[in-house]
């Protein structure tokens, strides 16, 4: 039946909303892309980590909205995250639109297993359309499918597609339109009458207990999924009696010959076998596919591991230095192409603002708060883009599953699985893309633990802090000629410290925060294929825009707050005066050289005084006794607090606070000299070897990175986890630094 013209839009079009479901590795993303193009919005459903991906396209009759549900093997929901898909399919979510139908996409070469999910979707009682994708691969796999016969046996429309080659897409759009006119198919009714009776009994019991009427499909799921999400949901609604009731119901079913949960897979696979009899023919002789031959090399115990290590090294290296390599032809090998452009844009905009606005709070807000904060967002873009470029290729060509396969044994020693390997490796360059990459981890527990320990991996932003401390305060010693250097050993120790600490942390998190059985690992090695560039670029674009858009705005807010804490409530009139004097004299720099140097020096001194008088300075003085056991004075304390938006900010803050101005780098001889000369009020040197070590250990373990925390918020869709991460890491950092300082002073003296 054609839809009635909508009143709100006023247009006489028939708009449809459909959901796209399928197993992982069925080419679902390619199909979504082919249908909707770049017209996709990514968000989260409230309260869960499930990604909400919506797209739309127009055909002759109106707009079709497509909801892309996460790839899954089954509708049996074990967590609240997985239950979301079921709720969307049943149109039970308040903010999700009502579905007109479901498109189930299957990998044609793998139709036996794929039809399991289809048979569950069939039972939902909503219109279903079956897409046999990767049709072009059938011949190579030695499979023939009589899809005409299959369609008549199933009684629902079937479309044959090769989504990565964009074949069959028009036919699918047409079928989506046509299928609206056909009635919903009756459920398969595979379950025997004792089971159906038990479902009805459960529904009645729930209503008697004061619960709401549940759809038959959910009653089935509650009985079938032992300890599953629908059971949990029901106990929240009705109470603790649900558990004993279900146990009894299941034992009644067992007596009646319906053993839960085996009955479901037995019946559905029995149905599939019968359905495909005479429809699917597999040639018996082609046992080894091209993919298997590639795997003989790629998962080989020697060659496979070697290829893997080279690939991982290449990816890791590219996140680290990729931007700089690209920047080399442009003379930007230090800052990187993108980094250099950001720097130029920042200084360009900064000068523009300074030339328009008079010096004062507004100018400082724009230059030091907004522009610097925005720069702090965009510096992550090259790393995110590069990592997701490689991840999307690896995922789309099928290698990602091999990474999990090769690394699983090693990662289980950390209590994680092979899927956590790449996110954690990437975090050694930068935790932001690393945490975003945890979406490949299907299990929620493993994903959460990976997200929470990822910031412990030593990232590239820690390096400047280490370099400054090591080169300024640690004596250089060499052993074995010049082969082993003390500086190198300390730097290396700092690099691996976080990873070593992560091992017990992961264990503790698994044990106490996410207890439960080891999740199933069982996964599929999809056949290798050439990656689709559309899918790859769309994924890169999605990740960048979701980072810049959602996490970015909060990073900006954080930068502005820290700026305000540094700026207020001090009186800036003198600093402004000195600045304008400098500007005046700078018109003829050769004449006023001496004068200018003096003014710069007094400006730096004034800035140092301003930060001391600011909110941040007062904070530093308040926390001085707290950081005293770490060997720090209030100035180090202030610098550490000011580095909350990003670790490397500490260098600029140290520069400002020690009257050198903020434009110092970790290699700056002036900064090193000043820090070496810094003393306690009693005249003893401030930065001793134990203090330098304690600062390094603190930065190795702390969570001073607003971007990481915002990305954790974005990925877990909850404030609890970024707060938890900040608290646990800061605690670790504090006690780690204290331990190092105290033992250090014991052996080396102050």
């Amino acid at each position, binding site marked *: 039946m054609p839809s009635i013209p909508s009143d709100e839009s006023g247009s006489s079009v028939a708009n449809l909303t459909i959901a796209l479901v399928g197993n992982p590795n069925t080419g679902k993303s390619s199909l979504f892309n082919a249908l909707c193009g770049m017209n996709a919005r990514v968000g989260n459903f409230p309260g869960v980590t499930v990604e909400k991906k919506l797209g739309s396209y127009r055909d002759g009759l109106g707009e079709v909205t497509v909801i892309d549900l996460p790839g899954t*093997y*089954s509708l*049996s929901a*074990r967590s609240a995250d997985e239950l979301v898909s079921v709720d969307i399919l049943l149109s039970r979510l308040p903010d999700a639109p009502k579905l007109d139908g479901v498109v189930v996409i299957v*990998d044609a*070469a*793998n*139709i*036996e*297993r794929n039809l*399991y999910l289809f048979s569950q979707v069939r039972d939902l009682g909503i219109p279903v359309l079956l897409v046999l994708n990767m049709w072009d691969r059938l011949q190579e*796999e030695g*499979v023939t499918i009589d899809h005409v016969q299959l369609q008549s046996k199933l009684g629902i429309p079937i479309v044959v597609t090769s989504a990565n080659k964009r074949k069959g897409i028009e036919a699918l759009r047409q079928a989506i339109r046509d299928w609206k006119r056909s009635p919903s198919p009756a459920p398969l009714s595979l379950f025997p009458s004792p089971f159906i009776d038990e479902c009805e009994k459960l529904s009645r019991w729930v209503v008697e207990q004061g619960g709401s009427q549940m759809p038959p499909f959910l009653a089935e799921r509650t009985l079938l*999924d*032992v*300890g599953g999400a629908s059971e949990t949901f029901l106990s929240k609604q009705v109470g603790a009696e649900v558990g004993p009731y279900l146990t009894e119901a299941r034992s009644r079913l067992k007596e009646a010959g319906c053993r*839960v*949960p*085996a009955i479901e*897979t*037995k019946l559905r*696979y029995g149905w599939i*076998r019968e359905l495909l009899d005479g429809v699917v023919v*597999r040639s018996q002789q082609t*046992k080894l596919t091209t*993919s*298997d031959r590639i*795997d*003989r090399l790629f*998962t080989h*115990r020697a060659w*496979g*591991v070697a290829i893997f290590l080279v690939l991982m090294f290449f990816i890791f290296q590219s996140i680290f230095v990729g931007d700089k390599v690209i920047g080399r032809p442009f003379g930007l090998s230090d800052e990187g192409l993108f980094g250099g452009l950001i720097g130029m844009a920042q200084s360009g905009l900064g000068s523009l603002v300074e030339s328009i606005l008079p010096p004062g709070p507004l100018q400082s807000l724009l230059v030091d708060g907004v522009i610097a904060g925005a720069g702090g967002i965009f510096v992550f873009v090259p790393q995110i883009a590069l990592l997701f470029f490689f991840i999307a290729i690896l995922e789309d060509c099928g290698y990602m*599953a091999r990474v*999990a*396969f*090769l690394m*699983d*044994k*090693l990662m*289980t020693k950390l209590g994680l699985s*092979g899927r956590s390997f790449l996110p954690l490796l990437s975090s050694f360059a930068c935790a932001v893309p690393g945490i975003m990459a945890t979406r490949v981890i299907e299990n929620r527990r493993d994903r959460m633990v990976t997200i929470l320990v990822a910031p412990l991996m030593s990232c590239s932003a820690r390096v400047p802090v280490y370099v400054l401390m090591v080169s300024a305060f640690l004596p250089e010693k060499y052993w074995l000629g010049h082969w082993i250097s003390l500086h190198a050993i300390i730097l290396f120790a700092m690099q691996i410290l976080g990873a070593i600490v992560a091992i017990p942390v992961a264990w503790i998190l698994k044990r106490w925060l996410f207890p439960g*059985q*080891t*999740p*199933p*690992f*069982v*996964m*599929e*090695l*999809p*056949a290798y294929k050439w990656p689709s560039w559309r899918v790859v670029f769309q994924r890169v674009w999605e990740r960048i825009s979701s980072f810049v858009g959602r996490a970015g705005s909060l990073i900006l807010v954080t930068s502005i707050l820290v700026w305000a804490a540094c700026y207020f409530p001090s009186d800036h009139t003198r600093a402004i005066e000195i600045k304008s004097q400098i500007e005046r004299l700078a018109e003829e720099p050769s004449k006023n050289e001496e004068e200018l140097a003096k003014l710069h020096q007094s400006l730096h001194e004034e800035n140092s005084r301003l930060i001391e008088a600011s909110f941040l300075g007062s904070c530093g003085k308040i926390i001085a006794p707290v950081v005293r056991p770490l060997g720090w004075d209030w100035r180090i304390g202030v610098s550490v607090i000011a580095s909350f938006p990003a670790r490397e900010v500490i260098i600029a803050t140290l520069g400002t606070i020690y009257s050198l101005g903020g434009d110092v780098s970790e290699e700056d001889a002036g900064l090193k000299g000043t820090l070496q000369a810094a003393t306690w009020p009693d005249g003893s040197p401030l930065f001793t070897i134990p203090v330098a070590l304690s600062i390094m250990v603190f930065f190795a373990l702390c969570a001073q990175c607003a971007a990481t925390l915002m990305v954790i918020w974005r990925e877990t869709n909850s404030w609890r986890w970024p707060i938890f991460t900040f608290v646990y890491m800061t605690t670790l950092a504090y006690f780690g630094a204290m331990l190092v300082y105290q033992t250090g002073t014991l052996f080396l003296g102050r």
Partner: protein
Amino acid sequence: MARTLDGLPIGEEARVVDVHGEDAIAIRLMEMGLVEGALVRRMGQAPMGDPIEYALHGSRLILRVVEANRVEIDG
């Protein structure tokens, strides 16, 4: 002792008889098609011997040894 899938030698085939347990791992194994009568062949294993790769219908599954140990096979 009944034979289980982890003991199947490389290149050999067997039919599934049963999957032990009722927990999430058992459910997942069955959902992936390891049900009574399914024909499985061992293709290889990861460098450290775990997980193991199997062929089932048109797909290649990887199972940890502890998971394969849940799947009883004939012969």
